[in-house]
């Protein structure tokens, strides 16, 4: 699993090139999966809860069973996590200084903008928001229908329940994309959402 360690450190910004690299390594270089299997694993990893990069666990699992899954996960997350941990510790040392406060406050609007951008990026590739599929409206309506109640109620109590209501009203379930369609769309997306 030497493959995932460099990937961990290369994936700045959530990994614009991560998916392509992963595909190259696991399909072409090591032959762990066929291209078709890779596409399916990708779709599955997007359907599961948790951070989007659980794909690495699936490739590891395909290559070497459970042990592979765990190793791939650790290899992908450990190096970057150590780096962030170091940065966070260093950062914490200056707590209370003028600079510390200014930087934290200065980053706030940028981060809020990034969160909204992430939402737009997911909307772009989500089924119903599929580019060129002509049913973009569904996804937008569903997302807004969820955002409105969740955002309006001050405590944002039950996003999942709100989502479930949306599921019930999902206007055209048959409008959902095929797996290969999803992967194609996800490749258009620069995976900043991961």
């Amino acid at each position: 699993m030497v493959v995932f360690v460099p990937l961990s450190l290369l994936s700045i910004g959530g990994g614009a090139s991560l998916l392509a690299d992963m595909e190259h390594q696991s399909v072409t270089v090591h032959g762990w999966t066929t291209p078709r299997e890779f596409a399916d694993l990708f779709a599955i990893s997007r359907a599961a809860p948790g951070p989007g990069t659980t794909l690495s666990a699936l490739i590891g699992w395909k290559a070497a069973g459970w042990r592979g899954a765990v190793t791939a996960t650790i290899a992908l997350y450990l190096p970057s996590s150590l780096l962030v941990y170091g940065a966070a510790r260093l950062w914490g040392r200056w707590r209370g200084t003028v600079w510390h406060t200014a930087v934290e406050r200065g980053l706030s609007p940028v981060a809020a903008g990034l969160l909204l951008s992430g939402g737009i990026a997911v909307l772009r590739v989500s089924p119903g928001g599929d580019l060129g599929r002509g049913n973009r409206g569904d996804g937008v309506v569903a997302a807004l229908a969820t955002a409105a109640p969740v955002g309006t109620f001050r405590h944002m109590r039950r996003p999942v329940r709100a989502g479930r209501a949306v599921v019930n009203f999902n206007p055209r379930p048959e409008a959902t994309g095929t797996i290969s369609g999803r992967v194609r769309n996800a490749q258009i997306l620069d995976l900043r959402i991961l």
Partner: protein
Amino acid sequence: MSEGVPLGGATAETGRAVREHHRVGLLAIFAAFYGLGVTSFGGNTAAWIYHRIVRRRHWINDVEFLSDVALGRIMPGSGGVNLTVQVGQRLRGSAGPVAAVGGLLSGPLVIVVGLALAYTRIGLSPAVHGVLDGIAAAAIGLTFATGLKLLPSGPARFGPLAIAFATVLCVGVLRWPMLPVVLCLAPLSIGLALVQRRSA
């Protein structure tokens, strides 16, 4: 801290106060992130962390959260995991990130492999896709709600709001690469925060 950019009402200043009153247990951290991991469908972990950790448990405050989001996104690795590492570090020093990330990843790891197993045996039915799409829509809604909620507010909000909209325009709409955009806008925004602090 009434000057500058007040954020998010009641939770804005409670994070540290709660932490100083009682240390959050490692088991509690693991449990919180485990629950978050297995229910955070749709990819954007940050929005779920905001909802569960900031709004519900008040373990960190809005400003801390946003600062961690920004750093987590510009550092290498998964933004969600990076954010988790930082929240864990704020809560419990060096053991916190281990508990938080372990909690966050262990559930999804099992679920995703289980899904893959099920998929190789029976395939995923269209009905399952429909349900997952609905959940994904909810997650997108939650992401927008979180982003909107955390937009700068208060008397000195116009500069920071402009920065936030510039970020959305460049990264979200025009889809420019995130790193250079953040590296341009963040210093601007930090400078603005310094100036506002001085004049406040």
